[in-house]
């Protein structure tokens, strides 16, 4: 039994190491791309069963976003970012649970086992990338709504010592968000992988089934948490605009 924190390199392209988790992340991208192209052709005014289910899920997210952001217009504006984060992480997590992922071994070196595929979220590179996107996007939308100076003022505020200190804390919290986002997702999914490896190693038949269900659930929950936290941080960054606007009036 071999457990590695790092994603293993499968091959190199001009010095760039392509890891097994990156391959599966690209696989998730490919699946979503195919879905997008097929869906585009099949979208109808009177929805079929699949379109109805998708619309129900989207409506659920839009309602949830409206309750956080305050109105439907804002939720429609930021919907693509939030739902893409959710869907992408969800598909990545579930792909990591497919039979063969982690168990299809490419080669073995000494006591090191290199599987062909690895759950993308069980690689810190994937989760840090998403965390950076989440934090950058919330700041970007904050700037778009508030303006660059008002946004910077949140981090560098010289109006009073307390505000200055709060500003510094705000800046640190932005970095902390990246760390908490990335390590939460990475920790949960990696722990799930380890749990499944251990269970498969101890009792290969039947016993892993409940844990697989658990991991399916964890996959949804982690994707949902990531998307919702992004939404809440986004809401915090653009909600300040309203208080500014009110004070301006």
């Amino acid at each position, binding site marked *: 039994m071999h457990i590695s924190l790092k*994603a293993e390199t499968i091959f190199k392209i001009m010095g760039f190491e392509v890891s097994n988790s990156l391959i599966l992340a690209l696989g998730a991208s490919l699946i979503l791309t195919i879905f997008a192209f097929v869906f585009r052709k099949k979208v109808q005014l009177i929805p079929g069963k699949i379109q109805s289910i998708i619309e129900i899920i989207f409506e659920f997210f839009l309602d949830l976003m409206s309750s956080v952001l305050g109105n439907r217009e804002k939720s*429609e504006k930021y919907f693509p970012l939030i739902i*893409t984060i959710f869907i992408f992480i969800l598909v990545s997590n579930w792909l990591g649970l497919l039979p063969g992922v982690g168990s299809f071994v490419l080669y073995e070196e000494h006591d090191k086992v290199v599987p062909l595929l690895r759950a993308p979220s069980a690689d810190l590179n994937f989760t840090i*990338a998403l965390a950076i996107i989440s934090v950058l996007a919330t700041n970007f939308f904050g700037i778009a709504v508030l303006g660059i100076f008002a946004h910077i003022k949140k981090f560098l505020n010289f109006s009073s010592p307390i505000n200055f200190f709060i500003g510094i804390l705000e800046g640190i919290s932005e970095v902390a968000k990246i760390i908490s986002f990335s390590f939460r997702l990475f920790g949960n999914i990696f722990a799930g992988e380890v749990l499944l490896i251990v269970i498969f190693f101890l009792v290969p038949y039947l016993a892993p089934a409940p844990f697989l269900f658990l991991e399916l659930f964890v996959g949804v929950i982690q994707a949902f948490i990531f998307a919702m936290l992004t939404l809440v941080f986004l809401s915090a960054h653009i909600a300040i605009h309203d208080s500014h606007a009110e004070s301006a009036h």
Partner: protein
Amino acid sequence: MDIGQILGNLGFDWRVALANLVNFLVIIWILRKFAFKPLQEAVKNREEKIKQGVEDAVRASTELQMAKQESSRAITEAKNNANEIIATAQKESDKILSESKVAQQEKAKQIIQEAKNIIKQEKQKTMESLKNEVAELVIVTSEKFMKEELSRNKKAEITKKIIKVEK
């Protein structure tokens, strides 16, 4: 041990992270362009269609209500007209009947009167002819009787008496 080394031990490689980041940006662009926008447009179009349909249904319902009121009013008016026509016709027929009844009665009276007159005339004629016949019969009888029993003087005297009686 610096933070880069810690992250390195955990498998962090900025180039792979950047690849993942670009990968995500491509996916969000594709999904937004080819999935979310068409779906949002379809939902909006559907909402507009439904709204239009509901508005049409409300308008049609109002129009139906108005048409019902109009037809109800027309029916009431027609009934009133029909009642008026029936009443007029009734009056007219009553008038015609009463007129014809009077005319009939008068005609009947006239016929009765004419009949009475005819009967009276006939009676007079009969009486006259009866008198003449009786007189002739009396004369004939008297002649026969006088021939046998009475003289000529006596005859004349009886004849005078008879004539006197007749007058």
